[in-house]
């Protein structure tokens, strides 16, 4: 049971129940759909870019608790950040959920630290990273959909 509590930490359960920035963004400059075909997770991420700054970000869609909470935490974490900062955060997050050393303390990781338990559940890494992959695609601005397969 301890592993399970590690995976479904309170932050994740809270963001799953009450996802932040869970809406369409009328002024979005980028809009990308993300799919996780095997489990049916499906989100649309909206980004309002102002030069190099992520002025606003939101998402809509459906999926498991891990994917929804991750999208929610992602949206509140990257809001107001520069593109390059968001990229670095994704790299850090990816290392965290795949069991690598994220190189940051728990305090520095902030809410992202709640996803550390995912590394014990390899099948769930895709869930945790779906929104981030979708965000990256949105920031690249070359495609309008992405899958984790």
């Amino acid at each position, binding site marked *: 049971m301890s592993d*399970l509590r590690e*995976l*479904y930490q309170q932050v994740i*359960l809270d963001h*799953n129940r009450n996802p932040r920035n869970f809406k369409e963004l009328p002024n979005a400059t980028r809009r990308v759909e993300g799919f996780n075909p095997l*489990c*049916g997770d499906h989100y649309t991420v909206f980004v309002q870019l102002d030069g190099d700054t992520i002025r606003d970000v939101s998402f809509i869609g459906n*999926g*498991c608790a891990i994917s929804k909470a991750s999208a929610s935490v992602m949206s509140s974490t990257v809001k107001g950040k520069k593109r390059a900062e968001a990229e670095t955060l994704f790299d850090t997050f990816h290392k965290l959920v795949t069991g690598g050393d994220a190189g940051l303390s728990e305090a520095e990781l902030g809410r992202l630290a709640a996803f550390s338990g995912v590394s014990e559940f390899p*099948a769930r890494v895709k869930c945790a990273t779906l929104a981030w992959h979708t965000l990256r695609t949105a920031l690249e601005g070359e495609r309008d959909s992405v899958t984790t397969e």
Partner: protein
Amino acid sequence: MSRALHEVGSSVAERYDVSRIREDFPILHRTVHGKPLVYLDNAATTQKPNAVIDRIVRYYTEENANVHRGVHFLSELATAAYEGARTTVKNFIGARSEKEIVFTRGTTEGINLVAHSWGRGHVGEGDEIIISAIEHHSNIVPWQILCEEKRAKLRVIPVNDAGEVLVDEYAKMLNDRTRIVAFGHASNALGTINPVKKMTAMAHDAGAIVVIDGAQGVPHRPIDVQDLDSDFYAFSGHKVYAPTGIGVLYGKEALLDAMPPYQGGGDMILSVSFEKTTYNALPYKFEAGTPHIEGVVALAAALDYIGTLGIENISAHEHDLLTYATARLQEIEGLRIIGTARQKASVISFVLEGVHPHDIGTVVDQEGIAIRTGHHCAQPLMMRFNVPATGRASFGLYNTREEADALVSALRRVIEVFR
């Protein structure tokens, strides 16, 4: 339950000693996350009994050689085992002749073989192929490819909210352009058992041929292809307690005989020159290349094993589990069963209010329970029922009521975590 049924039930329970049967499956003794394994993913694949595992070991220890080739002792032994297995399969499904039994990689390859070899020669522009709304992707995509190539039309029989095919709608779809009707014997995602004999007769009245995806039929009930009168019937070994990578396509001899080969290679030819190749007789015409010999002999061992238990007994046991587990699951508040057909195989698809199936899968796995979560390779069906995915518990010949209870407890645990 009627008295007669109840009597059948109790006499089965006496004959069918599930705790003894579980001894035949070594994997059922292992633990998962420190808990006894509760394997409820039998519609995905089944576990293998010692009879199958030992047969593979014996094949490689005593018999291994290529078949239909050498004059040496081992080759003859391997060929005898391989062809003996064909007879076992023939008897198991009630075919007329060994010529009607083609070994494939699985159900998917069987369906593709028919689509490619029969379909290309008989389906033309404006013709129609009918499938049902509850098909597995492997009984959708081969027909889509064929329709696209031939500019034919793919038509889909709708289902009601219980997941039952609407036979009246099907009747309206049949016409003189219908060439092929393809449907599952039982739905892997919902468990619905289709009225296959009736649907087959209706297709024949319209002049169409019938292809049955039997992947979920053969493991659960007695199959008699002559009684069904289906033209083709495909199934997979790994869903009937045999290895993966081996399957069977049954086809009526006259149809198979008139069909061109599916693949070219060894075993499927009589003679080859650079000018002309003469194809081998049935069923070898459809078995190009060195076959999955070990898989074939192990499939026969699995069917023999099922024979010793009695497929009717297995069917009754699984029906008891289905009835019991359905009732127990319905006790859980917020749980909704998707697929409530009157005739069902032992498959229960469900959703739990407020919890995504994927999260259910992870939590119950921590309790040692294996269920499938996702769209079950039936995405159009998930859309029909307006769910992104479901959890699915599917029962096999070795499952018990206690395992259904374990699932119910684990689902209560899921609710605890997410509430």
